[in-house]
Structure formats: structure tokens, C-alpha cells
């Protein structure tokens, strides 16, 4: 695509009307088709060396997450230690991509991760509901970045999006992106609250047009979190967005991915939908807390030849 195309996209954010025209002009998602395609890709058999490769890649893609009201500095430090060295019994096991915490825990995590190469992500903008005034969200973001976060996970205002106030959502993402400075911005769409795949596609494009570096499925705080078809729709969006503008955007499914089998299904969908360019921790992440232990157990199984158990890995 050309520079004129890029600038054409730049104009879209000017008004609600332009955004609506563009977003509603996107082709609709074939719901049955998307679900069948995801289910079909989920049946691929990945074994032995390919499986070992996929497991290591998945470990390197994990955003090790703790987002509980009960988080303490001690728990966050323990999580950071695990992020740096997931399997103390095997130095070959790669480190995870990032640790994801609440803003108040960012200073603790920054200290614990210094020099490790593990990124530090913080949720911001009144996570998980997003129901706060814009200046509070901006301040939330600035505080997290100032404390040392190099990735920000923001939530969009689903209320505004669902009622069609697209420009409001757009402006908010632009403002938060500005507040991020050099930090990467992940935009959480909370697909479980968007109701349709068409909305997921629209929200994905909206977030990408507004400057998000990553689009992320969910907060993990609502009953329906990441699903394979939703991720498929988002991966199609980032693929099409790169084709249209030349800018590559990452995807992060979060919540509900607990087993190695699930993770490998996602990797297959990534490869078959967006392409091998996205099979990299810079462009695809898993937001998860329990997934890592299952990956480590499967890794140990491949290494030792017998099944491992949860007793041999730390809980957090």
C-alpha cells in the first residue's frame, strides 16, 4: 500500500461519522466459518521435536500475570523470580516474555526484573472496567510508566464502543498512547463483552488505527475470556491491517488458556492466519498465570521421558 492509503486511514479518526462509515464498512465475519476454521486448525497434530519447539516458543511468549486484590510485594517478587528462571531444575528453559501486574506493584517488579530482559507490563486505565474519567486513566498510565513499566495494558470503554461512540474510544486510545511515551501499548478489547465477531473486528481496527501496538482479547475478569475463534478474527485484522498500512500489530489472547494443548492450538492458528512473522514474542503473547506450569510439566515430560506433576513447580 502507499503513503496515500496511510494518510487516508489517518483521517478516519477525525469524527464519529467517518469512523462509523469505515468500521461498519469492514466485511462481516462469517461466524460459523470462523468457528469451524478455528476448530479445524485445533485438530492439527504437533508432536516430538515440533512440540518441543512450540513449547519453548510458548514459554517465551507468556506474559506471566498476577492481577489479584490480594497481591503482595512478596508474591510479585516470587513471580518475577519465576519469570526469569521458570524451571530452576533446567537452565535451558527460556525466560518468559513479560510480567504483568497492577500499577502499584510496578516498582517492586521493576526492581526484581532489572537486567533480566524480561519486560514489565502493567495494566492501567482503571483496569478491568475502564469506567473512570479520562484524566484519571491518563494519570494511571503515566504513573505506571514512570515507575518502570515498559508495556501498558489498557482497557477500552466498552460502554462507549457498544453505544457507537467510536471517536470517544479512539481519542482515549490516542491519549493513552501519548501518555505511554516509549512504552508499548496493548489495547484490551474485552471480547467477552463485545457480543459479536463483527464487533471484535471493528474494535480491533479501531485500536490499531488509534495507534495500539498490541490488541489483547480480555482482562480475564469476565466469564468469557480468550477463545480460539475470537483470536482468529483478531489475527485476520492484524494481517489485513499490515497489508493496508505496512504497520505490524501484535496479538495477545488472555484468560482461559491453561494447557499446553490449548497454547499449541493458538500457535497453529497464528501461523495459518497471520503468518510466521507473528510467531515471535514481540508479536504474539499469552496472558496467563496457570499456563506456564503446564508448559513446564510438558517440557519436563519431553526431557525426562516420564510424566511430571504439579508438586514440582511453584504455584505462583
Amino acid at each position: 500500500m502507499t503513503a496515500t492509503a496511510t494518510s487516508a486511514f489517518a483521517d478516519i479518526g477525525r469524527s464519529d461519522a467517518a469512523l462509523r462509515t469505515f468500521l461498519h464498512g469492514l466485511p462481516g465475519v462469517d461466524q460459523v466459518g470462523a468457528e469451524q476454521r478455528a476448530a479445524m486448525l485445533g485438530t492439527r497434530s504437533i508432536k516430538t521435536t515440533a512440540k518441543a519447539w512450540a513449547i519453548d516458543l510458548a514459554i517465551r511468549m507468556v506474559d506471566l500475570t498476577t492481577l489479584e486484590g490480594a497481591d503482595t510485594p512478596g508474591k510479585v517478587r516470587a513471580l518475577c523470580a519465576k519469570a526469569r528462571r521458570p524451571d530452576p531444575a533446567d537452565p535451558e528453559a527460556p525466560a518468559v516474555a513479560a510480567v504483568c501486574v497492577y500499577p502499584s506493584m510496578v516498582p517492586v517488579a521493576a526492581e526484581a526484573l532489572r537486567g533480566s530482559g524480561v519486560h514489565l507490563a502493567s495494566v492501567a486505565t482503571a483496569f478491568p472496567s475502564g469506567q473512570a474519567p479520562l484524566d484519571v486513566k491518563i494519570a494511571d498510565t503515566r504513573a505506571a510508566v514512570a515507575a518502570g513499566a515498559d508495556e501498558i495494558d489498557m482497557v477500552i470503554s466498552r460502554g462507549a464502543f457498544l453505544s457507537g461512540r467510536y471517536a470517544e474510544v479512539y481519542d482515549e486510545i490516542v491519549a493513552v498512547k501519548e501518555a505511554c511515551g516509549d512504552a508499548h501499548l496493548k489495547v484490551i478489547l474485552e471480547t467477552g463483552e463485545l457480543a459479536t465477531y463483527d464487533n471484535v473486528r471493528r474494535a480491533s481496527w479501531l485500536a490499531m488505527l488509534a495507534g495500539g501496538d498490541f490488541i489483547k482479547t480480555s482482562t480475564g475478569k469476565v466469564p468469557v475470556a480468550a477463545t480460539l475463534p475470537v483470536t482468529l478474527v483478531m489475527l485476520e485484522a492484524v494481517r489485513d491491517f499490515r497489508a493496508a498500512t505496512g504497520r505490524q500489530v501484535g496479538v495477545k489472547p488472555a484468560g482461559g488458556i491453561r494447557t499446553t494443548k490449548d497454547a499449541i492450538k493458538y500457535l497453529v492458528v497464528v501461523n495459518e492466519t497471520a503468518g510466521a512473522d507473528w510467531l515471535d514474542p514481540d508479536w504474539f503473547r499469552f496472558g496467563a498465570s496457570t499456563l506456564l506450569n503446564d508448559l513446564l510439566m510438558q517440557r519436563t515430560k519431553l526431557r525426562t521421558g516420564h510424566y511430571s506433576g504439579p508438586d514440582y513447580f511453584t504455584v505462583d
Partner: protein
Amino acid sequence: MSDRLAVRKTYKLYVGGKFPRSESGRSYLVQDSNVALASRKDVRDAVVAARAAVKGWSGATAYNRGQILYRIAEMLEGRRDQFIGLGEAPADVDAAIDRWVWYAGWSDKIAQVYGNANPVAGPYFNLSAPEPTGVVGVVAPPDSPLLGLVSVVAPAIVTGNTVVVLASEGQPLPAVTLAEVLATSDLPGGVVNILTGRVEETGPWLAAHMDVNAIDLTGALEAELARSLEEAAADNLKRVVRPSATPIDWHADPGLGRLTAFLETKTVWHPKGV
């Protein structure tokens, strides 16, 4: 009216309270019936199911566990003829029913017999109490497919353990039929998981599994197999019950050996106060 077509039965595994086919899709023929041939991944799934059931089952009151074991005896009684139809001797079926009742009675008595208030030189209550070991792998006796099976499973679960059983390879039908009894006896899913197939194939995976806490090798009659399974079990210090050197008379008084083989003793010190 035409003659009815017979409904031929496919005997499946019993894992987590459900009756899945083998993950591998394989089966083998026993007495003109198809029986699932379990693979290592079925072992893995069964251990996951057994582990998930530990908390609820070991946390249930001893009284409740006893009631459920008694209920199993009731349901088995109701299917007595079915087991005889599978070729079991009536005396074996009756003994199996009685064995459930006998072990059911032990559920709330074992702590009195094997627990203790220990005298210590200090102002403390010092109490020892038996607790379940956790997930127990069981190689069931191949030569006594019902009475032998009940005699190894009942003592393991009555104290709160959960089990993954490798049923008799040559005579698996009573084991799968027993699973149907268990499934209708209020026994929580996952407490007993029954796999049919080749012990040489699945046994090593069960014995080496790091999330299994104990293994009962009563049914591993070949010395070489028993030896290799015990070696595999050593990696995470499983409790091991070795196969008997002499043939076991399953009709004899079972004693408490199998009951206590899968217990850990917890001792607590508590200040007496004034």
C-alpha cells in the same frame, strides 16, 4: 415382527466418573466383546482425574466414605447375576460384596486403631493420626478379576486415597462392569479410575508418573515386570506394595495390611494450656 438385533456392548475405560474410549482409539477382543486398550495418555488423564478427586474425597468425613462404600456393596448385590453371567463364581461375587461391607466399616475406625495420643515429656497434647497418601496406582490381580480387584481397591480408597487401576488384562469385563457399579454408587468421579489393556504397556508410565504417590504391584506377577515397575517408582519415592511371594487366597481374612499400606501418620503437638 422381525427378530430384535442384539445390542453388542463396547466396554470402555472409567476415568473421572465417565466412560471414555481409549484416547488411542484401540480396543481388543475379550469373550467376543470389544474392550478399550488403554494407552499412556489414558494413564495421564486418569492420574489427572485421580489427583483432582483427592481433595474432595480425603476431605469427606469418614462416615460419609463408609456410607458410600456400603452403597457400592448394595449396588453390587443388585448386579450379582450379571457378574455370574460374566463367568465369576457365585462365591467370589458374594465375597466381593462382603469385602466392600467389611472395609466400609473400617472407614471411621481406622483412626482409633492406628492413631494415638502419645505421652511426651512436656505440657503438650501429642496426637498421631493416619492420613491418606494421595493418588495410588494399582496393578490389579490378573487371576481374580472381581474379588481380587475389590480386595485391592476398597482398602486404598476407604481411607481417602484415590486410585488408578490397571485391570486384569485377560479378564477385564468384571472390572468394567464394576465401574458401572461405582458410577451409580455416589462415589465421586475420579476416586476410582479403571484402565483396561496391557500392563506391560501402561504400567511403566503409571509407575514413573511423578504425580502418583504410591503403587500397589499385587497384580504384577512376573518378577521382571514387578522389578522394573518398582525401580521406576523409586524416582519420587512412591510407597510400593510388592507382589506376594506366594499365591494369595482372596477368600481369606484380608487383615489390615492393605489398609495401612497407603496411610501417612501425621503427628501434631498442641500446648495443653494450664
